[in-house]
């Protein structure tokens, strides 16, 4: 069985029963690792408690912080403050300037775009080339596809189809996440891959977007956050005595 990762579960903050319900469902649907959004103010004890809940259900815990900065300066300040606190940093790009800054910053793992309007989805060719150079990935949340209907869903599908094509051309990795805030909205990775067919992602790429791509991000950041990391390509192999 593939190692499926859902990097974006959105439970209500500090509601552990709700978190447990979501993680139980994720485990039942075959996810081996799941990311949960928490704020930069979450204490270490709360993180530990969450980790224990995940471990008891056999799901690897991935810490994640979502940033929604108003300006590029705001983004840089936030990144300095939180980069070493979480394994995954996602940036919701609400303006073009923020999108460009996030795409070229190597500390950003995931780029996501607001659903409100197709005009506010700034993932164009220039953005994709910047993201490709800085190894940021494009995140697509699947929950809106389930929640929206009719005209709004067709507009979203059309935007996603365009973004997926742009990402593929520029070799930007795509990460599919559930974005689910309740267990009934969670689907298995295979079901999500079927839904990805609606916006032009074939089954092979969709499975990769649910397994290899998110796994690579988590592994890379875990290596970087480990005390043995010195610089890219330089690691402490053995420490001297005393």
């Amino acid at each position, binding site marked *: 069985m593939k190692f499926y990762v859902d990097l974006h579960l959105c439970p209500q903050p500090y509601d552990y029963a709700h978190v447990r319900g979501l993680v139980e469902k994720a485990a039942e*649907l075959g996810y081996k690792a799941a990311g949960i959004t928490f704020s930069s103010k979450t204490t270490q004890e709360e993180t530990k408690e969450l980790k224990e809940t995940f471990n008891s259900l056999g799901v690897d815990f991935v810490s994640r912080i979502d940033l929604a900065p108003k300006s590029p300066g705001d983004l840089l300040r936030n990144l300095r403050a939180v980069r070493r606190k979480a394994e995954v940093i996602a940036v919701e790009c609400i303006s073009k300037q923020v999108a460009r800054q996030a795409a070229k910053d190597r500390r950003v793992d995931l780029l996501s775009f607001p659903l409100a309007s197709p005009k506010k989805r700034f993932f164009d060719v220039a953005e994709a080339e910047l993201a490709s150079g800085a190894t940021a990935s494009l995140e697509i949340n699947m929950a809106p*596809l*389930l*929640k929206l*209907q*009719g005209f709004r869903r067709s507009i979203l599908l059309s935007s996603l189809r365009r973004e997926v094509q742009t990402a593929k051309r520029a070799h930007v990795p795509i990460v599919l996440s559930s974005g689910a805030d309740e267990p*009934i*909205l*969670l*689907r*298995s990775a*295979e*079901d*999500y891959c*079927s*839904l990805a*067919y*609606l916006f032009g992602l074939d*089954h092979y790429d969709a499975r990769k977007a649910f397994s290899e791509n998110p796994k690579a991000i988590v592994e890379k950041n875990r290596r970087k956050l480990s005390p043995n990391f010195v610089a890219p390509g330089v690691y402490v192999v053995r420490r001297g005595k005393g």
Partner: protein
Amino acid sequence: MTRYVRRRYVAVKIEGNQTLSERDVYDAVWTSLARLFGEYGASQAELSLIEYNPEKKLAVFRCSHKALEIVKASIAAMTEVTGEKMAFHVIRVSGTLKSLRTKIDNK
């Protein structure tokens, strides 16, 4: 001479508090299919409900093999049936009913 038609059998697990009738299950999938792909797309799927077990909440659909992807997408896209929140999960797909049953039993 008629040509051999390739079909796929799709086993679906239904999740939710409400117990649905056979008609509700079929209508729900058909409606989702028609909503996503239109009546023309839905007609190409040649969808039919082969069996439904309300106790196990398990349904088996048959569709054309060419329309398998659209049927799976339509099943995954469903969020409510008769006004109640429900989720449909595709658990297995097979080319014959016999092998589908074997796969489900072995799971």
